[in-house]
């Protein structure tokens, strides 16, 4: 069971006259809903802006969850990555999802190191992505798996 850590974080970026960037972080209570946190962040950054010659260029609110301290379950290193390419509900809209340390069991003997998309755990994963309201960075909903193969990522 994932556990929300004791503090969420506001990450803001500021830019000075020379275009140098400063990362600015302040912790906040994780029980603060995202909309309220964003409103509080805007208020705080307005006050920061009044005091600084730098200008804020954006911010994000990060909610961190701890999952497990257990060791890895198998020998495969994180460099062997399964790349799942999903089609989304827009023209030329895709989502790529990487799975580091993909287990050897799910790689077929087909040239190109293709993922066995008929294997039950892979089917479950693909279905979780499609059913779990995931989208690509532009907000287009995932519709179907297009392809899945292995890459080596240093």
């Amino acid at each position, binding site marked *: 069971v*994932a556990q*929300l850590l004791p*503090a969420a974080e506001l990450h803001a970026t*500021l*830019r*000075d*006259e*020379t*275009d*140098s960037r*400063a990362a600015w972080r*302040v*912790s*906040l209570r*994780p029980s603060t809903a*995202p909309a309220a946190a964003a409103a509080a962040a805007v208020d*705080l950054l307005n006050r920061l802006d*009044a*005091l*600084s*010659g*730098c200008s*804020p*260029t*954006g911010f*994000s*609110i990060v*909610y961190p*969850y701890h*999952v*497990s301290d257990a060791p*890895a*379950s*198998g*020998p*495969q*290193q*994180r460099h062997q990555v*399964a790349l799942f390419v999903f089609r989304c509900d827009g023209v030329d809209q895709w*989502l790529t*999802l*990487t*799975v*580091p*340390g*993909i*287990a050897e069991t799910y790689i077929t003997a087909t040239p190109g190191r293709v993922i066995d998309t008929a294997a039950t*755990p*892979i089917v*479950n*994963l693909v279905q*979780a*992505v499609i059913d*779990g*309201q*995931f*989208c690509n*960075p532009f*907000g287009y*909903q995932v519709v179907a798996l297009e392809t899945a193969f292995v890459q080596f990522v240093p």
Partner: protein
Amino acid sequence: MAVTITYVDASGSVGKSVTHVPAATTLADANTAAAGLVTDLLAVSDCQVIAYSITYGVTNTTPAAPAAGSRVENKALFAFRTAAGKLARISVPGIKAAAVAASGGIISTDADVAALITNLLAAPWCDSNGSSLDALVSDAQVFRSTSKRQYTTDVSPSS
């Protein structure tokens, strides 16, 4: 908004994967979706998922121009006592000259300084352990680097 999942393999190397959920998704729903995805990821990966985070990003598409002479290294550093008795430090990059005393301290009676301090002492802000910021204990002007992306004016990408 982004869901970033962090893995560790048997050698201790750390990897990440990122996916997204629509911006209107509530934190609770995003967490449910992320937790479900983690379960299915664990079934196909030899790595262990150690953590994930859910990030709501906001980009200022029309940022104001920084003030002439502003430098991110020129900071005001504020130290706060937390409810747990620890210290939490928060800096202000590019502190305006009007807020800095000749001694190098920060003029806490300056209206803009006071407004920032008042805001930080109120909810929802806290330290990284979730302890509230209870009181300002010190302030000073410091010169510190913040990030690798630092330039002098004559090598700025915009010049």
